[in-house]
């Protein structure tokens, strides 16, 4: 399941809504990305997340489908926020559920590595001094994604 929203989310409530009442699940992994109060040694006052409505949902759904083709997931969820966010706020939530923990961990990491490099979101940070700047893409994110390419089934 995929959601793109301005509102915050609660990890516990999302897991409960996704899995509540199910008795076949052995392992649940969640990943939450949060806004940090510093970047490259500078204080960050706030961040605006721009996205491409329509393509965002399509890309997230495609990434989720790819994860479910690779691992035997019993349930999955991706929520990504957009708009104005302050340090300490949630940005993204990924939930994966499987019978065994190895599958749930791998699928959650895969979902994060793929959405980081393919979902059309752009972060603009405002520093403590009031300067606004677009966040640059990180080579480490490309490297994180690349490690999954070789083992494609």
């Amino acid at each position, binding site marked *: 399941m995929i959601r793109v929203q301005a509102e915050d989310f609660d990890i516990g409530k999302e897991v409960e809504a996704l899995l509540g009442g199910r008795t076949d699940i052995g392992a649940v992994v969640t990943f939450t990305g949060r806004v940090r109060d510093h970047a490259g040694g500078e204080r960050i006052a706030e961040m605006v997340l721009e996205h*491409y409505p329509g393509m965002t949902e399509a890309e997230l759904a495609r990434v989720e489908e790819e994860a479910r083709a690779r691992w035997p997931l019993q349930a999955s969820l991706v929520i990504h926020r957009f708009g104005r966010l302050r340090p300490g706020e949630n940005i993204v939530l990924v939930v994966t559920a499987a019978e065994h923990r190895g599958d749930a961990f791998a699928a959650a990491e895969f979902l994060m590595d793929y959405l980081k490099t393919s979902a059309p979101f752009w972060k603009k940070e405002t520093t403590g001094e009031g300067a606004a700047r677009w966040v640059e893409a990180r080579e480490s994110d490309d490297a994180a994604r690349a490690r999954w390419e070789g083992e494609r089934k």
Partner: protein
Amino acid sequence: MTVKLLYFAWVREATGVGEEEVTLPPEVTTVGELMAWLKSRGAGYESAFARAPVIRAAIDRAHARPETPIAGAREIAFFPPVTGG
């Protein structure tokens, strides 16, 4: 050919436009050719597409490459490398 163009993040800020309809000359057949053509449309476009090698594109909401043909496209978007998550 008439197509909707979208710009995001610093590409949008440089062109000064978020969305527009344009009619393309017939010699513009790929994403790369479209970027070169856009560059000639004014100072904002020129400054945005001066960084064409790092600009990414999507055709009808799917990632595309400079060599991807644009024939039949209804919506083409240009944006920096993504930084979500």
